[in-house]
């Protein structure tokens, strides 16, 4: 081919020097060039097709803080296996949720995707055939993959036999990291207040008693993103478990115990007590979590109620921040204090993907000990692989120890109606601003619950 070009060019050059150059030789030359280009691109096309034999795996996620680490791992995986992994970030999470939902409706989900939402939402995706059952892969080689995870992290993605969602038992998601949502306190501000920085309050009474002291010193007490109401629900559930125990909470969701029950009124009353004591930061119910994180990182607030992801956020905002994690102070000694925790974020494999086998292989690699340790170090998130725990910093270990007390609505097997949850959260907001009493909110929530139960029955 090269010879062909050289000959043509040589002929043309020679003729170009002479007056003999004519249209025919030009046509021959350009004809040769075009033929050459055609053959060249044909060969190129064939060769590139050979390299494209390895599929490209597309992954959609919303985790802005983990994107750089994911991209690094994708490159590493490509170097190892030749399989290109294309991580696509869509943020904020609200927009991501809508995108995933729209993609599901249009049946064009990527090979791997994360799912934000609750168990019922998760089950809808499974019922619609969007999510692959990965149990066989998890259980291969004597549960090798399955056993590498924290059981509670896996439970979030698992559907047990006889679950109320009507899903065939199995594991439908791979946890990438774990999280716990608990309290943190500023050790430096504790010292300034004359408190022992290694002795955070253990009971609700001790906690509430700090309110006046904090207020008098001009600091803010507890900050949290209670404008995004789900964090209110989270703390309220912690106290519900502490006051009445798991069974009664689940019976309430099933509709067997009313929200007007004395124990639930006690739960609502905790928020009134918090407000009355002055422990809550001013404007907490219009506070978004990012603002709450800024206040805590800037040492304006003594306590924060936040998830383990905050370690990374605080590190970015104030690397010198001295703080420690603590469980929410107990309101009752009858039942243990429980916090929300489990899989922080998980990836699901698209059941309709042509690359599902490759996708599973990639997730197996991604959740392996080394990759998990790298993710934990790079992003300050707790690894889902329990074997990676030995390599994480102390503050992360404190959050990880919270896994012993962790539960999550996604593992309860029953889900509360959205409208009831909404009435519950907005009701607590009303209590905090002093608009409604705990009893009135309990009655309102129960009214919505009755309406939803009746609606469900009518179907």
């Amino acid at each position, binding site marked *: 081919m090269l010879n062909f070009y050289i000959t043509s060019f040589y002929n043309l050059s020679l003729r170009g020097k002479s007056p003999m150059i004519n249209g025919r030789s030009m046509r021959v030359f350009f004809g040769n060039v075009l033929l050459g280009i055609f053959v060249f691109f044909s060969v190129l096309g064939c060769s590139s097709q050979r390299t494209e034999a390895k599929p490209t795996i597309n992954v959609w996620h919303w985790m802005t803080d983990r994107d750089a680490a994911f991209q690094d791992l994708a490159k590493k995986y490509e170097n190892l296996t030749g399989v290109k992994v294309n991580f696509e970030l869509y943020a904020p999470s609200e927009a991501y*949720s809508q995108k995933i*939902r729209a993609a*599901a*409706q249009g049946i064009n989900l990527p090979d791997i995707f994360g799912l934000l*939402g*609750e*168990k*019922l*939402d998760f089950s*809808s*995706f499974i*019922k*619609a055939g*969007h999510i692959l059952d990965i149990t066989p892969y998890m259980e291969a080689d004597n549960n090798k993959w399955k056993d590498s995870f924290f059981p509670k992290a896996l439970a979030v993605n698992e559907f047990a036999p006889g679950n109320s969602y009507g899903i065939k038992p199995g594991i439908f998601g791979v946890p990438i990291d774990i999280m716990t949502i608990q309290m943190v306190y500023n050790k430096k501000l504790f010292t300034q207040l004359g408190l022992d920085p290694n002795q955070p309050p253990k009971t609700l009474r001790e906690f509430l008693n700090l309110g006046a002291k904090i207020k008098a010193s001009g600091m*803010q007490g507890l900050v949290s*993103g209670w*404008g*995004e*109401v789900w964090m209110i629900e989270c703390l309220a559930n912690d106290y519900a478990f502490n006051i009445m125990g798991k069974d009664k909470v689940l019976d309430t969701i099933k509709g067997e115990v009313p929200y007007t029950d004395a124990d639930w009124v006690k739960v609502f009353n905790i928020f009134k007590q918090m407000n009355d004591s002055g422990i809550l*930061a*001013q*404007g*907490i*119910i*219009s*506070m*978004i979590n990012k*603002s709450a994180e*800024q*206040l805590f990182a800037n040492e*304006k607030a003594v306590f924060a109620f936040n998830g383990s992801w905050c370690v990374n956020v605080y590190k970015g905002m104030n690397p010198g921040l001295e703080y420690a994690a603590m469980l929410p102070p107990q309101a009752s000694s009858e039942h243990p204090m429980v916090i929300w925790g489990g899989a922080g974020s998980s990836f699901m494999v698209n059941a309709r993907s042509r690359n599902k086998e490759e996708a599973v292989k990639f997730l197996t690699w991604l959740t392996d000990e080394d990759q998990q340790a790298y993710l934990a170090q790079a992003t300050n998130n707790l690894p889902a692989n329990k074997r990676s725990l030995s390599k994480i910093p102390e503050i992360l270990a404190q959050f990880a120890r919270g896994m012993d007390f962790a539960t999550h*609505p996604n593992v309860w097997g029953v*889900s*509360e*109606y*959205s*409208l009831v*949850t*909404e009435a519950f959260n*907005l009701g607590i*907001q*009303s209590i*905090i*601003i002093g*608009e409604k009493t705990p009893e009135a909110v309990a009655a309102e929530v129960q009214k919505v619950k009755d*309406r939803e139960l009746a609606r469900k029955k009518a*179907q």
Partner: protein
Amino acid sequence: MRLKETLENYVFVVPAVAIFSVFYIIPFIWVFQLGLFDWDGISFARNFVGLANFKEILLQDRNWWQSMWNASYITLIALTFQNILAFMLAWACDREIRMKNFYRVIFFIPPVLSEIVVGMVWRFIINDIEGANIINRLLAACGFPNLMHHWLSDPKTILTTVALVHCWKGFGWGFLIFLAGLQTIPHQLYEAARIDGANAWHSFKKITIPLMVPIIVLVAILTVLGSMQAFVLIFGLVGGEFAGHTSVPVLRILASMRGSSPRFGYACAQGITLGVVLVIISFIQYRFSKKGH
């Protein structure tokens, strides 16, 4: 021959009709259709419930009507405060004042900013703990320390604060449309009125206002449509519904679409209800203006 001409005409119209149908008519019909179902937005199974969603909205959903009330309050403030301000500033800029082009640019900056950015910036300006607390500091500096207030955490003031920020964001559009309208009024009319002995107020009342009625109606309709559908700004400013005090219809629609048991069908029915209310209001405004004119 005539048939050929007719067909030729249709050929020109078909692309526009097709695009309009695909992107407007069909989605509208689908939304209405989905409003008749109980559907979570994901499952293939949809449960037909007839008009039950609409019945629930009209008779049972107190949160929805609370949100409609809140949006109406924001709209009312926008219709009055925002539009009067926009009209006055447009009127001032239409006259021969110094630096009028500078003012035109300045007044048009807020509408071109992103709503979420405006919400966050005003949150920072107003908020006393997380922000710079500028409003309260100004009040104190001007000798009104007794007026200092937690504007964004008091249920009594939060909606008005939201409405005022919404006005700040939106008045530039009204200003621009009013200014364009004012510039179409022939100056000879004012000169003739002046020769007949009319003062500025008389000219304003007898010439400017009557000739501006169609523009005022247009701005009023746009204000109603924009204010009733506001929600991004509220998200940025107060983070959500603040115990229902800043709840607006679009936030309610979003709330129906998410959570542990999303109700897409119900959200569609809410969207249709909001649309119908807006069409009725716009129609009334239009009829009212025609009558007045």
